[in-house]
């Protein structure tokens, strides 16, 4: 795989930032992307362009013609280098690493967007379409069949619908914010522009290329503002609100001296996810503090120059993957001497399910729906056991709405980080005696469930309930 980095030289902008080894320079590349046609053998591209000077659709067309997937092209904004060649070198190193980690986009993972024209006459000709990356559901991993609809609840555009165990995705409605990608408890939703390995590669490369400590800020790829504070670098994501609160801490484990995420609705973004972003930053700060770190390593603003490189010596396989938050938090708790990390937070990517044995009927709706297997039920012959493993819970909250006894508080999800719970692993949260069939001896149903049905039906159906209690479905002739 060959990655080529090319910069635009434009007399109106700083020339000195472009004098970097290995960086190809083409005059007026922003306005004349056809000049890329001279480059041979490139599988991936990093382009250093001047924001506002180039037409994204033209860049996409040119790279497509070259046989390079436009979705994987990394565009570095020359303005973000603030005229500093060393800074530009770090940005390019990060972009190259991210570009190399790009694994390709399938046909379903892009959608054409045609700029809206307002006059009737202008409808007769089209500007070049621009292609936006959209998510794709890996149906082999998706847990919709079990009842999971985490994406449906998370999508601010109502792009997802759940129908009969299938999730239907409306590409047209999607604005590519990426929130479904990180909320999916099974990692079934993929957006070609962002992956855990790509983010990890980018941060690692930037840390290695930088002469001193750096800060990384996750920020929207469509942003209008720049991150130019000394020592700070942007990591583009589809929308900052998709970034779990653990990601800034994960960036520290890769050597970043500080990390955060920045909302951009103040600059005109219509998604208006500021509160979500603020809550996730607050989670990161709380987590850092609970783990004995300085919470200011996760600052609210990317302005203060990072003083030192991170000393957080934790090696994680996939800190930005679906199991990354749990792995990170468990590692934080055990990194020096065992530390208990315990706090509730609305942006916690981990959860703890609590069952009230007094009202739970052991109907197993919660465990049947749980997309990760955190809640499981097992029949032991004469009893039914419900168990919970906090290591598998992503706080997706699919179990709670399915509970028929939700109004009586039978189940509750606490958005909680609890490293003791993680250590314990799977534990029993409820159990009930199972009624046995008087004919064949097979389990009929949990006794508490039948009691509850009897309670709801009242005395008029006492004989029916008594019959149901004694016979399994097979022996009832059903």
């Amino acid at each position: 795989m060959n990655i080529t980095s090319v910069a635009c030289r434009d007399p109106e902008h700083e020339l000195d930032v472009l004098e970097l080894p290995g960086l190809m320079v083409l005059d007026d590349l922003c306005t004349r992307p056809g000049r890329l046609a001279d480059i041979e053998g490139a599988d991936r591209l990093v382009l250093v362009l001047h924001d506002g000077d180039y037409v994204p659709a033209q860049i996409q067309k040119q790279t497509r013609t070259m046989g390079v997937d436009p979705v994987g092209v990394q565009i570095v904004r020359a303005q973000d280098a603030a005229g500093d060649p060393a800074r530009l070198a770090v940005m390019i190193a990060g972009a190259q690493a991210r570009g190399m980690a790009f694994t390709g986009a399938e046909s379903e993972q892009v959608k054409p967007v045609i700029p809206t024209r307002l006059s009737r006459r202008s409808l007769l000709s089209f500007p070049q379409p621009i292609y936006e990356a959209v998510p794709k559901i890996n149906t082999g991993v998706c847990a919709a069949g079990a009842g999971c609809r985490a994406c449906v609840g998370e999508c601010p555009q109502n792009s997802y619908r759940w129908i009969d165990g299938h999730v239907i995705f409306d590409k047209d409605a999607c604005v590519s914010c990426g929130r479904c990608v990180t909320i999916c408890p099974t990692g079934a939703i993929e957006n070609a522009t962002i992956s855990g390995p790509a983010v990890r590669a980018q941060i690692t490369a930037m840390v290695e290329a930088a002469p001193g400590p750096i800060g990384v800020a996750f920020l929207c790829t469509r942003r209008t503002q720049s991150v130019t504070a000394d020592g700070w670098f942007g990591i583009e994501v589809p929308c900052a609100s998709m970034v779990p609160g653990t990601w800034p801490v994960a960036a520290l484990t890769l050597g970043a001296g500080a990390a955060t995420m920045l909302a951009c609705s103040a600059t005109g973004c219509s998604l208006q996810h500021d509160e979500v972003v603020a809550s996730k930053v607050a989670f990161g700060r709380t987590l850092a503090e609970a783990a004995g770190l300085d919470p200011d390593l996760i600052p609210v603003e990317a302005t203060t120059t990072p003083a030192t490189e991170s000393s957080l010596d934790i090696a994680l396989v996939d800190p930005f993957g679906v199991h990354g938050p749990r792995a990170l938090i468990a590692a934080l708790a055990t990194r020096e001497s065992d530390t208990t990390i315990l706090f509730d937070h609305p942006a916690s990517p981990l959860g703890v399910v609590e069952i009230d044995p007094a009202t739970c009927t052991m109907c197993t709706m919660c465990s049947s729906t749980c997309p990760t297997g955190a809640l499981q039920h097992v029949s032991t012959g004469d009893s039914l056991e419900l168990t919970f493993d906090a290591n598998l819970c992503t706080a997706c909250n699919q179990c709670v709405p399915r509970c028929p006894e939700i109004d009586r508080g039978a189940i509750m999800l606490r958005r909680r980080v609890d490293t003791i719970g993680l250590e314990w692993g799977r534990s029993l949260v409820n159990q009930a005696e199972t009624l046995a069939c008087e004919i064949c001896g097979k389990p009929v149903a949990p006794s508490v469930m039948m009691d509850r049905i009897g309670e709801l039906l009242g005395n008029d159906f006492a004989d029916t309930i008594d019959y149901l209690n004694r016979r399994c479905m097979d022996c009832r002739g059903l």
Partner: protein
Amino acid sequence: MTQATDIARSRQGLYRFFGSALRYPDPAQLDVLRAAVSYLENMGMDDFAYYAAWRRFTDAFPSTLDSDALAVEYVRLFASGTDGALCPPIESFYVARAEGGGIAENMAALQRTYRELGLSTKAGGESPDHASAELEVLSVLCGREAERWSAEDLDEVARLLARQHMFLRTHLMAWFPQFRGKIAATGTDLFYPGVVEATYAFLVHDVDWTKAVLRNLEAGS
């Protein structure tokens, strides 16, 4: 800027190309397809995302392939299934229940749709639920769309686009992904997998494209 008429003509050509490529091969077919590749390449396809799949297909288009070898491969993949590689390019095979007249119902529904569009399948040609027939229907609709663009009849353009979108969603895209999966699983690399991949990329794009243009027309009206 590209004229809307040209885009519709290009789509018309691509539908016809893919439809022809998936028909039982005749001796002249390969030459016609090779000539069509050059023609279509000049129609601004690189503006669109399916170009990558198209290019993969044309780059791998075997220059030495003869129509006899292609006919053998056609029968092996799409008709005989004697080596377990049966993946017919036929809608009813994938969407209709074999029992209870499901196939006949599906064929009748397609025939009805064709009649509503003023079309019918040729006697002795492929069945109405064959990929080549369905792709040809879309080619005809794109041709009509191009004419309406030229006449600046945007209301009719919108109606034709909506028709294409609906036909794609309810017919081709209801089974082509499954067909594509079966072809890929055969492991063969002689012409057809490339055609199917390129067709699939184009169909996925065209579902989005028709919707995007419709939305644009609504915003501009």
